[in-house]
């Protein structure tokens, strides 16, 4: 029982981090950014390349991954989202294709075999009778630090509040002197950085493979939609629901069913309650 709670908390923190970056974009442009998977992949592989293949310190690997993620986010906003402004379907398809191109490129560079990331911090600790590796503990703690920092940023700073304003009403925000373009750009950058950071942790939790992006993307999209667009708290709650669901299924039923129930839950909620559980009213 304790094992389930501890594991669930750890996995949920990770999901929450990955979903956060996605939530920012979705709440601003209502864009289903499927290339979010590209950040996850690139983040994981960048970290792998810098810290394991080049043997640099882990901090540099992590910073490298995050900055490349942010860079891709900015480029994507510049090259894809802005030119296709307003055409949601075209953006969706373009981002899907971008994610696949990233996947192909990574296969060409690193090969198709999955890679194991060395743990961020080696060692095992026993928390309340449950065996927990330092690695996943570190990942979760870092995720929470990043999430809290993001919350403080969105609530406390001028730029963060401007982001909220743009996500609620772009015209209104523009009238009150906010440059929506600039805010959009910043959001894409932050989202890319969050995705890449999530990718590093996710890869160290499971493993690094060119196919690793799809499931986390679907899960994070679902967390965001179910949690309600633009709601950080809702995202957190739903991330915990899904995290605990997966851990419980693995522990109680069968490990193979792990993804199955998650997908069923996602499909069910999307059909029954497309506006999400905790979201604000959409017009």
């Amino acid at each position: 029982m304790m094992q389930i709670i501890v594991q669930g908390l750890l996995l949920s923190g990770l999901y929450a981090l990955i979903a956060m970056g996605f939530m920012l974009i979705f709440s601003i442009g209502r864009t289903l950014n499927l290339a979010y998977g590209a950040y996850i992949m690139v983040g994981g592989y960048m970290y792998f390349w810098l810290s394991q293949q080049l043997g640099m310190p882990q901090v540099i690997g992590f910073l490298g991954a995050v900055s490349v993620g942010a860079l891709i986010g900015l480029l994507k906003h510049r090259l894809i989202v802005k030119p296709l402004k307003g055409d949601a379907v075209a953006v969706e398809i373009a981002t899907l294709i971008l994610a696949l191109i990233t996947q192909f490129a990574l296969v060409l560079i690193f090969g198709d075999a999955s890679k194991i990331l060395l743990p961020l911090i080696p060692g095992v600790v026993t928390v309340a009778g449950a065996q927990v590796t330092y690695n996943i503990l570190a990942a979760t703690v870092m995720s929470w630090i990043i999430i809290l920092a993001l919350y403080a940023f969105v609530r406390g700073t001028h730029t963060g509040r401007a982001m909220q304003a743009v996500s609620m009403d772009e015209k209104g925000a523009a009238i009150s002197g906010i440059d929506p373009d600039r805010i959009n750009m910043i959001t894409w950058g932050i989202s890319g950085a969050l995705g890449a950071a999530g990718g590093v942790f996710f890869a160290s939790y499971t493993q690094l493979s060119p196919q690793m992006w799809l499931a986390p993307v679907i899960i994070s999209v679902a967390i965001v939609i179910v949690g309600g667009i633009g709601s950080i708290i809702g995202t957190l709650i739903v991330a915990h629901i899904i995290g605990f669901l997966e851990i419980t299924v693995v522990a109680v039923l069968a490990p193979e069913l792990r993804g199955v129930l998650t997908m069923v839950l996602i499909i069910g909620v999307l059909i029954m309650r497309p506006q999400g559980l905790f979201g604000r009213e959409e017009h």
Partner: protein
Amino acid sequence: MDLRPHHFILWGLFIAAMLLMPELVSKGTLRTMIFACYLAMFAISWDILSGRTGYISFGHPFLIGIGAYTTAILTRRYGFPVEASIPIAVVVTMFGGLIVLLPALRIKGSYFALVTLAVMELMLQLIPVVRPDLTAGTRGISRLPALTRGAEDGYYLAVGLMLAIALFAWLLMRTRLGTALWAIGMNEESVRGSGLSTTRLKSFAFLVSAAIAGLAGAFYAHHLGAVTPRSIFDVNLLFQIIVACLLGGQAPFLDPSLAHSSWCFCWRTCVRQSALRWSSYGHFWSQFSLRSRDRAGSLSMR
């Protein structure tokens, strides 16, 4: 769409060229062409569902996979003859189409795309778990009975099937029904406002699309000789279908002036897809599929 004589001449030339192809090109190229034909069928099916009605489906491999798996299970596990298993596969896939239809009655846009993507992912995870004695898990079902011998016969079968489906889709889209489906993609509310039942129209589009996907999927499975979950319920297949549709210029958001010609669409899908695969993309792709582990399907094609 206005039909002019030169359309027929062009199409006559195209069909003649397609039928002459085995005399002109090598066996290996022919296998690529076979894949292009199946891809064109999948693309036509996707187009009826998504390109027309505007409900972008990211889960089309779900329908193709149902068709492929149904015929695979029936022939290998229950010893059905191919003549019976393929029609059954089509019918079963149409039920699958109803599953995709359900969310489309309530949600649209990004939400629908996401649900279909989730349905595909669900299927990928479900197939190895449910009744592994039937589906053989992640290894998939192999040694399906072949319909044809040799690349040439397989090619003629694929081309014939593709032309038949293309003709059917083209005729269908010329009817008032096709126009109504088109109108749903433009503005669903005003279609409802003019007294048409959008539910009925959508069910029709989804069923036709599913039937074509099931038919093409079943034949495709027999052509490959094997189905694995990874090779069918795969984003790459979806990617190829969508790219084929985009290059074909049928999808309404690219270019409305091209949008009216189903003919043009099919031709371009086929030829450009093949051309792409032969050139840089082909190199890229062959690298990719050769390196992929459980991509038995692609490997057996090469």
